[in-house]
């Protein structure tokens, strides 16, 4: 149920960024100067030289700008449990619990990224969700988790797929009525595989593991929206 509702929300959020390709949306953005994004007023003619707005060549605007992508989806995070964390939270040391329990979090994930050079990209991740408390004494407790990460990665096209590998670092904070979970650092390695559904839309899956906390891992599904067709991989 969590996964289904997360997908629905992710889909709704994803309608917003229908950005940039050709002149599909040129009627709603504009103007004569590419730096001027004031709204266009309806004009009597669309003939160049007679119309003020939009300017010539809006169909080429997306290629004037840097390639940007937006991924929207859901991520499941698995936190290896580290015993009673009250006051101490999870430590950065390896798992010390002997109970074998773990916390599971389902998070909405939104990330925006852009190319630094061909094949090298950076992205900013924001995740928000719910984590279940696996302590045996309180199995029904929940906490809200929010985290933000910056990632740096390499990407390459492979037929209809895009493969990506990245390192991400950031911080996570959690809030619970029953448990004190202070902010803690995150550093993880992730792999991603995206399939092109259309020239500007991908569906993808991600998997990764923490590099500083043994036993923590993540898996995710997402839709990706791209300002350049095929992410510029087929130039």
């Amino acid at each position, binding site marked *: 149920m969590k996964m289904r509702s997360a*997908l*629905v929300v992710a*889909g*709704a959020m*994803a*309608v917003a960024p*229908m950005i940039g*390709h*050709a*002149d*599909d949306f040129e009627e709603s953005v504009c103007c*004569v100067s590419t730096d001027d994004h004031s709204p266009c007023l309806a004009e009597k*003619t*669309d*003939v*160049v*030289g*007679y119309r003020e707005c939009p*300017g*010539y*060549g*809006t*169909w*080429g605007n*997306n*290629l004037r700008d840097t390639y940007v992508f937006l991924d929207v989806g859901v991520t499941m995070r698995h936190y290896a449990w580290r015993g009673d964390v009250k006051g101490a939270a999870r430590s950065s040391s390896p798992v010390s619990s002997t109970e074998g329990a773990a916390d599971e979090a389902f998070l909405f994930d939104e990330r925006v990224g852009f190319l630094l050079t061909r094949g090298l990209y950076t992205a900013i991740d924001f995740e928000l969700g719910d984590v279940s408390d696996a302590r045996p004494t309180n199995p029904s407790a929940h906490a809200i988790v929010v985290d933000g990460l910056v990632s740096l990665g390499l990407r390459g096209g492979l037929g209809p797929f895009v493969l990506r590998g990245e390192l991400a670092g950031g911080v996570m904070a959690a809030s619970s009525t029953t448990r004190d979970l202070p902010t803690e650092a995150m550093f993880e390695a992730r792999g991603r595989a995206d399939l092109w*559904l*259309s*020239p*500007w*839309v991908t569906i993808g899956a991600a998997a990764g593991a923490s590099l500083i906390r043994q036993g923590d891992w993540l898996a995710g599904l997402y*839709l990706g*929206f791209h300002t*350049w*067709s*095929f992410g510029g991989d*087929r*130039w």
Partner: protein
Amino acid sequence: MRVLAATVVLAGCGYQSGSFESPVRQFSGSLVTVDCLDIAIDRRSDLPDGHAVVSYTFGNRCDHPVLVDLSQVAVLGRDSEGKSFELAAYDPRHEIEALRIDGRAVGGEAIAYESEQSPQQICIDAGGITHAPTVAWLCIGSRPLLTEVP
């Protein structure tokens, strides 16, 4: 699931090569393919100031960006006696420039052409739009005709 499907559809399928169809652009007039570009060229009604108007609609058949240069296209007018004369694009703000259109994307422009006499027929070298080495003259009169320019 329906939301997901609708999202994908709304976000746009790419232009299908040779289709001359797009949900956001109507490909009207004479159709021609030059390299990666499917082009529709149509003549509209002349403007009140006498300028002839030609609409260009184009779809990129390829997955990579291609050049679209409407500034260097050779455009000729013909009078009722068949005499040819050059037409110049009306571009008071010097907007018309060579740009790239993204892979599988569509676009279009309507450009006015000025001349001392009103052309009965307008002939356009569509090959010039992509800087193709071959010429592809397209002549549009009262009804679109494909002809060779002498």
